[in-house]
């Protein structure tokens, strides 16, 4: 037994000395398969996408068959002059910003409430509240489309109708009433509102999990000490709670903001970025140019710009948000 192990050890050391890197680098071997797989399915397509963006390809066949010609940066120039591009870009940024702000408030509120000493059964409520994370996006998003239905008897329109009935029975002023049915999917800002609501609902569980676990790490004695010192709820929130959750909230914000920027399913399932292409988020815009208008070259350019934006955002976030804290330690 012992000798065979020794032999194997000899073989290994001979193998090691034959390798171009030092023996302690064998950890690299464990990492390489993942890097190769990731590169071949993710990085290589990006490079290829960039190549397509430099051609005048009009449909998939022209890319594969080699019927497309290199035209340099023409697609990008055309893009800069396309009002749809600017409209799409600004809508996307607005979508990211608005949904992020709402998300943070909603998630912090939920986390604080479901971690509050006075709430009985908060563990069960927490278990229930993060359930949306476990459901397929295509499922939940389609359900939300149904709830936001334009129809007079759609879920939200019915709810608003009931609200109107109650309010008018209280003889409330006309200003507080809604003009039902609201075309949630056919109006520009109504649709935008529907997108944001859905996006917040999809992303809050992730944030709640992270914030709750940060809150639970705050020692109780800190709160008690602050209470003894006569600090009110707001003051305790500012001095004890906020410092504890600041890091996790920033972290979760960065991650969800980057996902929001690439949101595709919500606009696509709701109304394909409508009405009249007004709510096309950037990925939807690129996808539509390729699928509906057979502008593969232009579409590739749009998507490259989108990827560049996300990459830049992540680069800044990683550098200044301390996302890669564990990376540097050696």
């Amino acid at each position, binding site marked *: 037994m012992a000798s065979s192990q020794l032999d194997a050890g000899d073989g290994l050391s001979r193998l090691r000395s034959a390798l171009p890197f030092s023996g302690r680098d064998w*950890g690299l071997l464990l990492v390489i398969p993942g890097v190769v797989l*990731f590169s071949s399915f*993710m990085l290589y397509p990006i490079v290829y996408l960039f190549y397509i963006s430099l051609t005048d390809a009009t449909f998939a066949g022209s890319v594969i068959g080699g019927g497309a010609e290199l035209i340099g940066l023409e697609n990008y120039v055309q893009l800069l002059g396309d009002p749809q591009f600017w409209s799409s870009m600004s809508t996307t940024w607005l979508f990211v910003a608005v949904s992020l702000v709402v998300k943070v408030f909603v998630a912090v509120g939920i986390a604080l409430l*479901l971690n509050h000493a006075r709430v009985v059964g908060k563990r069960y409520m927490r*278990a229930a509240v993060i359930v949306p994370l476990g459901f397929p996006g295509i499922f939940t998003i389609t359900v939300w489309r149904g709830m936001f239905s334009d129809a007079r008897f759609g879920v939200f329109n019915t709810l608003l109708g009931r609200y109107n009935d109650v309010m008018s029975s209280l003889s409330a002023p006309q200003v507080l009433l809604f003009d039902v049915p609201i075309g949630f999917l056919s109006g520009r800002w109504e649709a935008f509102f529907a997108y944001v609501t859905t996006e917040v609902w999809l992303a809050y569980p992730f944030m709640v999990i992270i914030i709750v676990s940060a809150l639970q790490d705050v020692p109780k004695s800190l709160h008690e000490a602050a209470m003894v010192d006569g600090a009110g709820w707001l003051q305790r929130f500012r001095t004890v709670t906020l410092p504890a959750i600041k890091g996790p909230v920033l972290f979760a914000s960065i991650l969800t903001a980057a996902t929001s920027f*690439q949101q595709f399913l919500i606009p696509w399932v709701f109304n394909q970025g409508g009405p009249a292409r007004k709510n096309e988020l950037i990925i939807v815009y690129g996808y539509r140019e390729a699928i509906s208008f057979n502008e593969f070259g232009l579409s590739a350019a749009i998507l490259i710009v989108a990827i560049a934006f996300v990459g830049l955002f992540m680069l800044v976030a990683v550098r200044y948000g301390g996302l890669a804290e564990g990376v540097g330690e050696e």
Partner: protein
Amino acid sequence: MSVLRSFAALVAAKLVAFATAPKRFVVTVQRAIYDLRTGKRTPWDVSKSVLMTLFGFAMVLVLLFPLFWIFTASLAEGTRLFTTSGIFPDPSTYNLGAYRWVVFESDFFFVDGDWGYPQLVLGGSGGLVSFRWAGTETGPGAVFNSLYIVSVTLAAGFGMIVPAAYAFSRRKFVGRKRILYGYVLFTQIGAGLSIATLVALYSLFSSYGLTNNLFVLGLFYAASAIPFNTWLLKTYMDNIPVSYEEAAMVDGASFLDTIREVILPLTKPGLAVVLIFVWLAGWNEFIIAQTLLRPENYPLSVELYNIATEGRFSTPWTRFAAFANLFALPVAIVYFAAQRSVEDGLSFGGMEG
């Protein structure tokens, strides 16, 4: 098998905890009443607690409203959903017709719901006694395609994520920092990126003849899950003190022993989260699948999308709901059982404070 058994035990423990929750609730209420009577707590103090709890409960109801709505919708086959009668279908009309449609008419289990029957074939070509599924002239349905994709994704994903996370957490090697940095950059670009590169992917897959190939698609999903999950597992492993391994080494444990006896057991919550996320990566995605596959290979997600968009403004809600509920059920069960691990595993160690 032991994995299955411990999983079953976990689910059972969860169910017991949920079943006994009302009793604990009653005890809490009784104690509050006792405290009130003996003057340990003031009425104002108790009513504050009651109000906060009611508030929390109301919030949970509001947040889960869409799921509740779609569940009741799945029970209302044959009725019109959007009518004057209200938001929820009339409970007296509840029936399982939609689920019957999913099982026996849709392509969920077998194409056109044609289940056929198992048949023993004696002296067939596949050995002396072979077992054959007979009577389904149309072939297996979407669930088998989904399961196939997910198995490939899980096998490839775990095979690459776990060793890499270990190496990142415990070993030094050339390029470690750079690769990890790259992974962190790409953490959030997984799913969105694949749609962004769809145009290129389609061309590439076509030119290599890889379209309509479930195996390659499974690999693709694994690739998209690698950066985030490797990073997640690495941060989780970072929280395991190195001294544990050193102690084991001093006691004569070999390198492999430390992995089997120290690292893997202590990483269980992290592994559970990675399992769920990698599973979801393969189970849920549908745009790439729809673009690259032909109808006979469609997984459940694509079938679900097709039901949802059958008519632009007339989703058959009851059937959609039943199909979606059955589609989401396995994930929901795993998620429910591993909820504690998900919370632990997602805490991102060093990110707190």
